[in-house]
């Protein structure tokens, strides 16, 4: 089974704090991590390899320092890693990113492509389905369980708002995963050594046979016009007194604003 796991290096939002005066992010000293959902995607790939055999390739698009994320994937057990990096990729929106990753996957060859449900910086959840479309393969989003995988067939559970669906598909396929799927393993000692020594393969637009018009800013239909701070929540009221008094005050307030 040829398995490719798409990962993204993101700023660690666990370290993000809000400046209460300006209501903006304090990003001083932020470091980069693998997008948390992607750790579950890597784990899913490793588990399938352990069951049916095969190779797990970690793939990312980003600046040279995104290599750190790929080495981390190798330390967890990925067999190899590929970094798409070039000026031409800069400024890609989700469409251009999907296009570039799909071209790379086409070159590498895959039976199953895993992605995290979404990246925690952009929160779009659009790149996974977009890759599947460019590859011309089916996809299933928000996979919470893989029930069965065998030659040419996979059966999974996908999370819905009101429960879950059991879905079967032919291979190849792209799956986006939620954290309920598994518990990502920590890096092993052997993995860490492998990660240190691993040669990270780099690919450019020419290597993946990409049309430069479809990459980066040129290939991105959407543009960020501006950014601004969200409206601050106004007027917090702390209720005080005995528990009885606090609850009475709360009820009073809820009735006043007609929420009760």
């Amino acid at each position, binding site marked *: 089974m040829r398995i490719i796991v798409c990962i993204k290096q993101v700023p660690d939002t666990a370290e993000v704090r809000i400046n*209460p005066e300006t209501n903006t992010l304090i990003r001083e000293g932020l470091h980069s991590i693998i997008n948390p959902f992607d750790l579950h995607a890597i784990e899913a790939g490793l588990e399938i390899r352990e069951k049916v055999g095969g190779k797990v390739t970690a793939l990312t698009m980003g600046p040279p320092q995104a290599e750190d994320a790929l080495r981390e994937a190798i330390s967890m057990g990925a067999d190899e890693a590929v970094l798409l990096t070039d000026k031409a990729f800069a400024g890609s929106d989700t469409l251009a990113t999907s296009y570039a990753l799909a071209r790379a996957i086409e070159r590498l060859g895959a039976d199953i492509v895993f992605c995290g449900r979404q990246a925690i910086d952009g929160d779009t959840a659009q790149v996974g389905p977009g890759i599947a479309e460019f590859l011309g393969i089916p996809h299933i989003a928000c996979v919470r369980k893989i029930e069965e995988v065998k030659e040419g067939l996979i059966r999974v559970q996908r999370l819905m*708002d009101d429960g879950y669906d*059991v879905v079967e598909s032919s291979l190849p396929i792209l799956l986006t995963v939620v954290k309920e799927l598994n518990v990502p393993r920590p890096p092993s000692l052997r993995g860490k050594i492998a990660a240190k020594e691993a040669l990270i393969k780099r690919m450019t637009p020419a290597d993946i046979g990409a049309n430069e018009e479809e990459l980066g800013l040129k290939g991105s*239909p959407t543009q960020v016009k501006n950014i601004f701070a969200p409206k601050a929540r106004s007027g*917090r009221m702390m209720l005080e007194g005995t528990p009885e008094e606090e609850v009475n005050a709360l009820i009073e307030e809820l009735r006043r604003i007609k*929420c009760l």
Partner: protein
Amino acid sequence: MPVIVRAERCTGCKVCVSSCPYDAMSVATGVASINEYCQLCMACIEVCPEGAIVEIMEETDMETRRHGDTESYRGIWVFAEQRDGKVAGVSYELLGAGRRLSDELKVELGAVLFGADGDEANELIRWGADKVYLCNDPALMKFNEDTYSELLSRLIKKHKPEIVLAGATPIGRSFIPRVAARLRTGLTADCTSLEIDKETRNLLQIRPAFGGNIMATVLCPRHRPQMATVRPRVMKKGGYVAGRSGEIIHIEAGGLTSRTRVIDTIKDVSALTMNLHEADVIVSGGRGLGDAKGFRVLEELARVMGGAIGASRAAVDAGWISYSHQVGQTGKTVSPKIYIACGISGAIQHLVGMQSSDIIIAINKNPEAPIFNVATYGIVGDLYEIVPLLTKKIKEVKGL
């Protein structure tokens, strides 16, 4: 690069360097520079005390690269999703937003409905649609990425709406990106506000990014249709007019095939696990509950308030409740009328999932808990004392 440093204004203070999440800024010889890894998040523009970093629009580039014939696209469409043949609540909210935008642009509002019947289609008309494109083929009852993507793409290619809106739900967020990729057009995820620039007919798509700590306005100036998924419960429903008339256009689902197949649908059994995205009230529990039994106490309150049960990541990771209840960055993003956080300290990852709620009530032992920073009403105290008392009082008020 559309973001540049005006060297004459730059003082080399390096504020931008630490603001950049992508390591794209550096300061050498006293002047900042931006490398090719800039993702245009524009954090640097915001923080620069000298106003030395600016975004430049490459006008000529944009004009010459206007994609195809954007002028032939007219009208606004809403994709109305259904589960079990019943239209989801978010669809009516989309019709409310769509009606407002189409009145501004003076165009028709269309709704697309798959796998439901004419009664549901008529309901969409009463909620504001001028036309409903209805395909009631039973094969479309169940959501399927391949068939939904193919049919919606076909309809868009044929009728050319300039804007297509869908719910940012598991269904919308799964197949709409596929449709946008097939049409090679732009898609903005999880919008919380939509406006129109009348002159250019561009849709101003406003959405949270970086976990809700920054809002971004996104445009799709050169491609049509402009597509967006919209977060449930943030748009207001439009007016319901019982006698409103419109046109239903029946669509044949000819030649649709699918590589994926839904073989079973399992509903969440507990009555209290009602759809978090659609609940008016959410009572949510965190580490402060101490154990799984704590949720019984919260369920009582949820029951009297007609609400759903949410949870922080800590409570889910402890195994007290299932992942489908998790609110926050790696769970669900919710915006109910009332969110009651019990024993939740309020880590940023939780806050980003609930801070757009109308009213936030925080109950926590620790007066320093960050949850109080976003609370409308705060009570410092033992939730096991406060919550049962609150349940009892509300019962009295409601005469239950």
